């Protein structure tokens, strides 16, 4: 039972990080009608920047710069590529984002090299025990920060002018344009928010129990894709549920891998994709997705 609770808690904290990434993925899809595959490399860019600058600037300034750099990179991709291709087929846009992703990723891997860059989180890699259930400090703080950001995001999405403009233009772009809503601005802001969320997720993804920043952080980030897709690509609530579901699945599959050994070792890493496939077989537009939108 303790093991189960421990895995659940760790799964939720991991899931909260995935949810941050998936939320960015979803709002980009809503605002720009692009399935953005650049998200993995943007996240790695954030992690790399934080790791590189921590020694010279100190941890907190490095984090701020890392978040800023990621947000700026996101808006550059939007302004110089996505915005110029407005109206292009969805598939072409998706492929373009894969191209951007590969370019950015290749450069980052070259920079990182074979090393594992350490991010000197002020919180150690120690475990905390909560009533017999163990979790790393990093994951515990991640859960808190992600929780706050997710709540802030949903409040803004529901009540702020940006949220209303965003939902209006996602539903009917032309009608929104007729109301004077500037779609370019809505879309640019969505990329910035997505960039910020990805950088914060990166900060925690490269902390304990993960050893640090390496090219492997990219594959971890990729697991937020099934989270976004199984939740329903156009649903922010779906991104949250999807993220948690993937996080818990992964933690459980890894924790019980002795019992699951008949599936082979390392099942935890593929479990998110298995869950995604099963969910999509039952509900092709994801748990909370709109049918028309996910059909594209």
């Amino acid at each position, binding site marked *: 039972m303790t093991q189960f609770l421990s895995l659940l808690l760790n799964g939720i904290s991991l899931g909260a990080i995935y949810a941050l990434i998936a939320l960015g993925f979803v709002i980009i899809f809503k605002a720009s009608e692009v399935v953005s595959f650049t998200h993995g490399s943007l996240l790695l860019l954030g992690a790399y920047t934080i790791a590189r600058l921590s020694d010279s600037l100190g941890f907190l300034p490095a984090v701020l710069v890392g978040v800023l750099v990621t947000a700026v990179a996101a808006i550059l991709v939007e302004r110089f590529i996505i915005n110029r291709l407005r109206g292009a087929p969805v598939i072409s846009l998706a492929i373009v984002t894969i191209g951007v992703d590969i370019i950015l990723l290749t450069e980052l891997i070259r920079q990182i090299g074979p090393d594992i860059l350490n991010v000197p989180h002020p919180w150690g890699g120690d475990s905390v025990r909560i009533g017999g259930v163990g979790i790393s400090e990093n994951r515990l703080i991640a859960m808190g920060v992600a929780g706050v950001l997710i709540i802030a995001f949903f409040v803004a999405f529901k009540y702020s*002018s940006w949220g*209303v*403009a965003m*939902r*209006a233009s996602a*539903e*009917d*772009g*032309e*009608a*929104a*344009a*007729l*109301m*004077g*809503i*500037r779609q370019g601005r809505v879309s640019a802001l969505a990329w910035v928010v997505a960039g910020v969320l990805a950088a914060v997720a990166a900060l925690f993804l490269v902390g304990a129990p993960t050893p640090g920043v390496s090219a492997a952080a990219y594959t971890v980030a990729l697991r937020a894709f099934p989270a976004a897709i199984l939740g329903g690509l156009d649903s922010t609530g779906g991104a949250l549920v999807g993220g948690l579901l993937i996080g818990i699945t992964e933690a459980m599959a890894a924790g019980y891998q002795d019992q699951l050994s008949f599936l082979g070792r390392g099942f935890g890493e593929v479990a998110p994709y298995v869950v995604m496939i099963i969910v999509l077989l039952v509900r092709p537009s994801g748990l909370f997705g709109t049918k028309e939108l996910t059909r594209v």
Partner: protein
Amino acid sequence: MLHITSGRTVLTVDSLQVTYGGAVEAVRGVSMEVPDGAVVAVLGSNGAGKSTLLRTISGTLRLHKGRVDAGSVRFGDLDLTRRDAGQIVRAGVVQVPEGRRIFGRLTVEENLRAGGMGNRDRGAKAKAVARVHDLFPVLRERAAQRAGLLSGGEQQMLAIGRALMASPRLLLLDEPSLGLAPRVIGQIGEVVAEINRQGTAVLLVEQNATMALGVADRAYVLDVGKVSLSGDARELAQTDEVQRLYLGHTGDAPEQRTDRAPLRSLSRWTA
């Protein structure tokens, strides 16, 4: 008509030519004017170029891969030709799209909020909300409801109210009667007349000539991208061509001419 307050012109369309995809000519040399404080109707069948004309004025032509080849659209002293939709809304020209196009997943209140996005002045926004609630009390009652759950007539009211949130000086209406019951169409006519009385000029594009000519001061008839007839709305309603093509009369029954629908109380909308 009586409420034309000045001899000035708010909107001037001059020899406008628009093509789609570089080939299809939708508007071929149209010129027209909307006097300040007037209601101007544009009649015409499908494909006459009515919607293209409105798209050009509101700056959404690009979204339909259309292009202005020649001519201009001026709003007062401001050249609107090829400006983007946001700038045109801020200048004071707002369009209610054909088929209502309300944001069905947003609440009624959020729809109105979205309509006011182009309106930065808080005072003007508060005034606009009061005006919209005054015109359509039903929108206040249903404020928290999802807009998609409103009836067709109520959705049209919301679409008009949403556009009024930007405090336009000129309101463009694209087929507001489309798909609505005759009784509701009469009410739309009253609303248009009331909005105009409050000082907003209206350009009304319609297939329903009875309603349009009932509220309009002037009217233009478009035929295959060109103005085929224009003039005083009442006089136009008398012509054989309009009687035959748009009012469904045989031409020899002038006593059946359409008059402005009797003004009913707007409080009907609370029902």
